[in-house]
């Protein structure tokens, strides 16, 4: 997974919602409010960034911990939900 470039599924739209103070995923007649971590990860899911780059980018912005296991867990879950594809 680490060298793959995930992208958001065409079914979903990802955006910042001021009223919710969070990132959300919007899809036909529904929405998911994302946690801060989930939002920061999905923001970097562009189809042009490898998971490896994504992790290192996050670790630069939020220094002090090894984020790789969390990111991999989240991406696996997101793929299962159909939010992203590799």
């Amino acid at each position, binding site marked *: 997974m680490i060298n793959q470039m995930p992208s958001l599924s*065409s*079914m979903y*739209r990802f*955006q910042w*919602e*001021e*009223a*919710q103070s969070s990132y*959300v995923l*919007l*899809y*036909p*007649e*529904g*929405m*998911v*409010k994302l946690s801060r971590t989930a939002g920061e990860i999905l923001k970097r899911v562009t189809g042009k960034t490898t998971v490896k780059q994504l992790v290192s980018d996050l670790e630069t912005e939020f220094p002090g911990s090894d984020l790789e296991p969390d990111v991999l867990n989240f991406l696996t879950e997101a793929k299962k939900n*159909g939010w992203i594809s590799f």
Partner: protein
Amino acid sequence: MAGSLSSISGKPLWLLAELTYKCPLQCPYCSNPLEISKYSNELTTDDWFRVLREARALGAMQLGLSGGEPLVRKDLEEIIAEAHRLGYYSNLITSGVGMDADRVAKFKTSGLDHIQISFQASDKELNDFLGGTSSFAHKLEMARAVKDQGYPMVLNIVLHQKNIEQLEDIIKMCVELKADFVELASTQYYGWSRLNIDYLLPTREQVTKAESIAKRYQTDLEGKMKILYVVPDYYEKRPKACMNGWGSIFLTIAPDGRALPCHAAATLPDIEFPNVRDNSIESIWDDSNAFNKFRGFAWMEEPCRSCPEKEKDFGGCRCQAYMMTGNAAAADPVCDKSPHHAELQAEVALIEKTSANKNEPLIFRTMKNSKKYQIDKKLNLSQN
């Protein structure tokens, strides 16, 4: 609804814009009010722009463009473009009649996110009979055009006694059309469908069978096509969490500008629903008596008031409670804790027993029938 709105923010998240009650179809289970013929005074394009802007400022994200048939509105493209500019996720809820491949493409350019097409049945004969118009072939064509444009597509089929036996064919049709989501929505009995309940209510046996078919396909098609099966609540023991609670996340604006906590709420007595022509969305949502009337839990009576499940189902549906008990604050009689539950069960049992022998015609949703209903209602009132 294909998705869910889990977050409760205290502000509207879902705006349902009923742009018009005009419709080329005449489905006898239509969820529009019986009084559709009275709604001639439709909001203007600018009114809708203001509604969209104000609801979005409060936090609404999902926009349903519905009706009637929203395609009847000539300004639909403009409304879609404004919704897109404001950052809504826009859902066009349509019969497909009034659309062609060009218009589907234009909607895409205007920023429409998703199209939901309704089918009445899986074959031409029944579909066209129920819709009161020859539309089946066109619907198939439009479903293909929607997929060609790369939209996510939801197909919606309202289930009832007349089509529930063909559920398997309905699902197969959806697979063939490459639907992303399928909503199998059991008829809810208000307005038109209530008038026709004797002909529409499926038997318990039919419902049990349909449920097992839906479940089987849900498993078989996992990851390919999502199937949402809405059970008919008359056969349940607990009510639906109607609208996720009154004035909680849903805001409906009727074609004449009346703001409603749900699209059926206008049937409730003694509530003056505020109009967007005279009020801001914020004051309607926060301050109006109508939106506060059944908000939260303080309005509840027993058995809801002390019920440990009240935060799960909010006492069920207010319209159903009023329709069956004469009291809009009563527990939804679908709940077996309601003192009226036995009456509901008896009514359902009677319909189950007699419906096979009914030969009278269905009452279709037409302006003519709507006017006739008004007159009948007036006559009944004067007799009382």
